[in-house]
């Protein structure tokens, strides 16, 4: 049984959203969880955060980086994904925290609407801060606005909103207001730097880690990360962890295990992918 693509849209530069018919995932998905997809028989298993779930459909949002995400971006309505497994990982710790700040960088912004909504539904006041290199990489701002009491938009180049980084806004908010919990989701380097801001204030800060995975069910250990000096598996112990306890350098190293293979795979895909008729093998 394969899983049908019900909606496919490009939502920003190099960023795409797909709604996939996968009832077993959609019906049980919570904020903070992910799924694992494998597009076809020769495909790789890759984890993607669940960005939204509605009835039988689940949404993923991704930036084209390597072969699999590039291939995913070419899928059209009616195309099928061979395997969709999930939901996986622990849901976000949703409770009545008080004032929560959710921060998204780049494609990580896509994880925020479901999280902001869950936090609001649990009675929290939610501030959203989203950042991207430029306006063209910003996504889901309108959707997020609906689930935040306040939303601040930042761009590195000043093309929209605040000219600067989410960390700058976070620092201001930490000075001005009482913040009870912070979520930061984005590229590892952005999560590392942004989460430093909350250390002096001793505010509980969660990050969603995205190391390389294979099975996603605790079986292989590919996704191991060091948290407070202890080895954890991001797939079953996470993917969310206390930002202040993460060994960031190790995570970033482990995300770059296969640079040459990733490049080779993508180049081959571009050579063989035919814009008119889809993917074909020689």
């Amino acid at each position, binding site marked *: 049984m394969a899983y049908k693509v019900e909606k496919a849209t490009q939502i920003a530069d190099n960023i795409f959203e797909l709604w996939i018919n996968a009832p*077993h995932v959609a019906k049980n998905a919570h904020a903070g969880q992910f799924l694992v997809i494998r597009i076809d028989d020769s*495909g790789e298993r890759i984890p993607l955060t669940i960005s939204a779930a509605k009835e039988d459909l689940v949404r993923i949002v991704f930036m084209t980086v390597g072969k699999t995400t590039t291939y995913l971006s070419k899928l059209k309505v009616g195309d099928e994904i061979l395997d969709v497994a999930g939901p996986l990982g622990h849901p976000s710790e949703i409770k009545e925290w008080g004032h929560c700040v959710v921060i998204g960088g780049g494609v990580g912004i896509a994880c925020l609407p479901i999280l902001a909504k869950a936090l609001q539904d649990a009675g929290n006041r939610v501030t959203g801060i989203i950042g991207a290199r430029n306006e063209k990489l910003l996504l889901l701002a309108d959707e997020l606005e609906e689930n935040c009491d306040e939303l601040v938009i930042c761009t590195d180049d000043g093309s929209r909103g605040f000219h600067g980084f989410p960390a700058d806004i976070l620092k201001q908010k930490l000075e001005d207001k009482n913040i009870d919990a912070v979520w930061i989701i984005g590229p590892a380097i952005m999560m590392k730097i942004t989460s430093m801001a909350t250390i002096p204030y001793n505010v509980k800060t969660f990050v969603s880690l995205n190391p390389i995975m294979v099975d996603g069910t*605790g079986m292989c*250990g590919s996704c191991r990360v060091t948290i407070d000096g202890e080895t954890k598996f991001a797939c079953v112990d996470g993917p969310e962890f206390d930002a202040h306890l993460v060994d960031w350098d190790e995570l970033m190293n482990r995300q770059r295990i*296969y640079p040459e293979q990733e490049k080779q795979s993508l180049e081959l895909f571009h050579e063989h992918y035919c814009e008119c008729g889809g993917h074909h093998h020689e």
Partner: protein
Amino acid sequence: MSKRDPKIRIHDFDEVDQGISDQNAVLEASRCMECVRPLCVKGCPVNIDIPGFIAAINERDFRLAANIIKKDNMLPAICGRVCPQENQCEGKCVLGIKEKPVRIGALERFVADWERKNGARPPHIAKHTGKRVAVVGSGPAGLTAAAELARAGHKVTIFESLHAAGGVLTYGIPSFRLPKGIVRAEIDQVLKLGVELKLNHIVGRSIPVEELLSYDAVFLGTGAGLPSFMGIEGENLNGVYSANEFLTRINLMHANRFPEYDTPVINGSRVAVIGGGNVAMDSARVARRMGAKVYLIYRRREEDLPAREEEVKNAIEEGVEFVCCANPTKITGGPSVSGIECVRMEMCDADDSGRPRPVPMEGKDAKFTLNVDVVVEAIGQSPNPLLVSLMDNLERGKKGNVIVDEDGKTSIPHVFAGGDIATGAATVIEAMGNAKKAAAAINKMLE
């Protein structure tokens, strides 16, 4: 059993053992003493009627032989290949006292292969009972339980978290020891009994625990998937794999055929495999086939290796270099692996396991370093905690294993468990034996 030339076989993943011919099978079967009280049957965890099927081979009625085996074992081509027969059926054979035991494993495999080539016929299924049974995990335990329960007439659904069924048979055991086509064919036989298979379903996540418990009976066969790591410095460097990851990348995801398949694996030119069990042998032999120089580092002596003797022999023939009485202390490099530091071990008095206790030697000669770019840790697995940690009231042991009675019954009424989730890492056939007992108990409960 004839084996392929090591010089040739280390360049591919095709099966090493070639099986026996019709003639040799009949000849071997004729050696059976047809004991009145056959010890071989007692030695078999699923109690196959061994003298019965061997007698049928002797009569050249291979179809009958297959049917006799399948009464007790729906996975004979798998068991004929991976069972440690030398410690089980063959280990008990009275002929073994004075000469060689009957090669029961080879005969089982012969019959299964013969049947597959000549068209397998599904066994009889009892009238539908209207009861629903959930089986979690599609490895040897889950498949066996599912087959037994489906034959009793229950509606069985197997939930599998990966995209392929078979558990360790699929992701763990390499195809040169157990060809994937054979695993698929035997799984298909189980599915032909009317068993429903739901892939990509993680029970506890895709199916809430309450929904699982709504079945008339539940069998947990989620295996021992959680890999152990040594806890030494440098373990999270790029190039250090658990055996599970290394084998999964290759057996399940075909990383040996990258970039035809998308999943990569570091193509190490020098690989250290740590451990001495069957999983370590599999990892070392896979690494050889990827073209690497392979060291197998084991802390005890070669004669203490827990792997099957046959697999050790295969590994040696294929050029795996054994570094025994050595224990890794540190993996060096950064960000990728560049070497592994070890200390030589000497054997002292027997420890709890009855084997000599290895103790690190002292002095500067005791330390040595191997230059390697990949390290594979094959030092064991523990029960996968994902589902069982979500089940309140499920009594578990210190190592995370589910506690069961001799029928496989857990502390939750109508929930049974078997295989590695209950026993910790063991053999395929032991898992099947547990599953058969649990299935029998479930059948009794549902009567």
